[in-house]
């Protein structure tokens, strides 16, 4: 078990290097020069060749790509994520500033997904082939197919334009103004949470159906246990673990969804920062954002895999 965890852990840096190095190369192939982006913006059309060269050297952009990558990794190990090629402020602080909004959105959406997806999946599985099951399953498959940006537009149309119930866009931390914060979070959370609950519902249903087919459930029924006891003690206990794994796997989807949702609702989060840094050719910033996204995904996956192996002794890992 320990050997498995250690081996799994050694894969994390390999994947991190793979992701960041390929992004490093892709970003440098991008048409458009970050220096031009900076100069063109701050000083109009004046191109002082010497100033451009000085800036290029200062930002280290005159060196070969692999040397730049080496410098970036060396700094990173010391906790320095470099400075933005755009506004020359430290990347680490700017990403930290963006964490609250993304955290609000992520936690709220995951809560919605858990509160809707799991109960719906369990009920659907227990009453399989009933009209309730068909209804829930159909709503879930629609939830998976609906583009989250279109769903957001429909929400804005209904709640902002027609009913005038909610503020359209923006973000306030919940510790500053809880009511306004929740009002602003309502639509982005619904848009992001719907897809998640749909996927969670389908996986929950499949898992519970599989557990219901196990011999020990048949045994429990055969010895005359009430069906509520069977469900609580035998079915749910065994179904919870696979369901938690699915929740872990959804963190990746949550981050990807936050890119679009934060942009649509003008939330100052990490996802929106990704779009902004691509648009402004902010190499180091995007590098930092992708590093954070990837690290979160990897750590969550690692934790899920290992906890799975810890809890379920039947699982053997080679």
């Amino acid at each position, binding site marked *: 078990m320990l050997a498995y965890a250690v081996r799994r852990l050694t894969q994390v840096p390999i*994947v991190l290097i793979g992701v960041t190095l390929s992004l490093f190369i892709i970003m440098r192939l*991008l*048409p458009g020069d970050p220096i031009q982006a900076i100069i063109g913006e701050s000083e109009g059309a004046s191109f002082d060749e010497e100033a451009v060269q000085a800036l290029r050297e200062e930002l280290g952009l005159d060196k070969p790509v692999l040397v730049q990558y080496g410098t970036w990794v060396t700094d990173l190990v010391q906790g320095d994520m470099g400075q933005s090629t755009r506004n020359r402020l430290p990347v680490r602080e700017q990403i930290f500033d963006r964490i609250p909004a993304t955290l609000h959105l992520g936690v709220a959406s995951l809560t919605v997904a858990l509160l809707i997806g799991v109960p719906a999946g369990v009920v659907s599985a227990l009453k399989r082939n009933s009209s309730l099951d068909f209804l829930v399953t159909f709503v879930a498959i*629609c939830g998976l197919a609906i583009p989250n940006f279109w769903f957001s*537009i*429909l929400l804005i149309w209904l709640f902002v334009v027609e009913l005038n119930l909610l503020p359209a866009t923006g973000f306030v931390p919940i510790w500053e103004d809880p009511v306004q914060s929740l009002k602003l979070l309502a639509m982005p959370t619904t848009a992001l949470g719907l897809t998640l609950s749909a996927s969670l519902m389908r996986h929950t249903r499949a898992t519970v159906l599989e557990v219901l087919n196990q011999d020990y459930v048949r045994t429990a029924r055969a010895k005359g246990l009430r069906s509520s006891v069977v469900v609580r003690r035998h079915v749910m206990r065994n179904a919870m673990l696979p369901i938690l794994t699915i929740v872990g796997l959804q963190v990746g989807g949550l981050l990807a969804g936050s890119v679009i949702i934060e942009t649509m609702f003008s939330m100052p989060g990490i996802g929106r920062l990704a779009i902004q840094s691509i648009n402004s050719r902010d190499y180091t910033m*995007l590098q930092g954002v992708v590093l954070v*996204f990837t690290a979160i*995904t990897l750590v969550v996956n690692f934790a899920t895999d290992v906890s799975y192996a810890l809890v379920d002794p039947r699982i053997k890992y080679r």
Partner: protein
Amino acid sequence: MTYDVAAMELSLGTRRRSPRGKQLRRLFRKYPLAMIGAAFIFLVTLVALAAPLVATQDPNIVDGRNALQTPSADHWFGTDRLGRDVFSRITYGSRISLQVGVLAVLFAGALGVPLGLIAGYFGGIWDGIVMRWSDSIIAFPNIVLALALVLVLGPSVLTLMFALGLGASPAYARLVRGQVLAVRELDFVMSARSAGASDLRIIGQHVFPNVAAPIIVASSLTMAGAVLAEASLSFLGVGIRPPTATWGGMLQESYDLIYVAPWLSVFPGAAIFLLTLSLNLIGDGLRDALDPRIRRAAS
């Protein structure tokens, strides 16, 4: 393994034994949602192929005097801010969605399936390389990867095929690898090997046919994902460039008109939604038909 013959014939196109009408009715009774999905895909494909005939006018004709009209007999889905006919633009937009969807699936399969076969069949270092490669792509936030690639390569159908196909390829590699690991040690592969068959022959003749069914299921779900992703990129303004009509691009243009012309946002989104939904329904139907394990659990 027992497969549902009716669905296999539908999906794999083997010879039919009963008349087509009867066959379709039987399939419809068994998989009603999947058949509705298939019918809708068929319709969209027809519309895309015959777009000039279906569209009521040229999708790019600008007519300032008729801008932002509500749906009417002349303009079934209304007109946008430049007075272009929304119905005609949706008709032409289907071409981009379908092309990108199909090409991305083909690219993902062409890349992922061989890699999965190699990883599963040869194992060892090959398995390690392929799996770390697929871990990296999966851990990479896929929309950021696609955005960056499209910006590097310039927006075109082929670029989108590459960017979205690359993101989807690990799913194929992992799926095929898992299937190969399961099949590799079975008797018929062993007997082929002891009869002196080459690796290539064993993979092509014995292993691959056994992993085909899950690949077909995965393909319809992958295509749904690609259609959604193409729409997302166009919505973010990095897909196929205007004035070419794309469903995501139409939503981007209409988004800030939500106060004055909400219908502009309804139709393109509904088109994306219905196409994705149909592909998911077909995928689910095929999975039910092809995977006896799930069917047993559901019956």
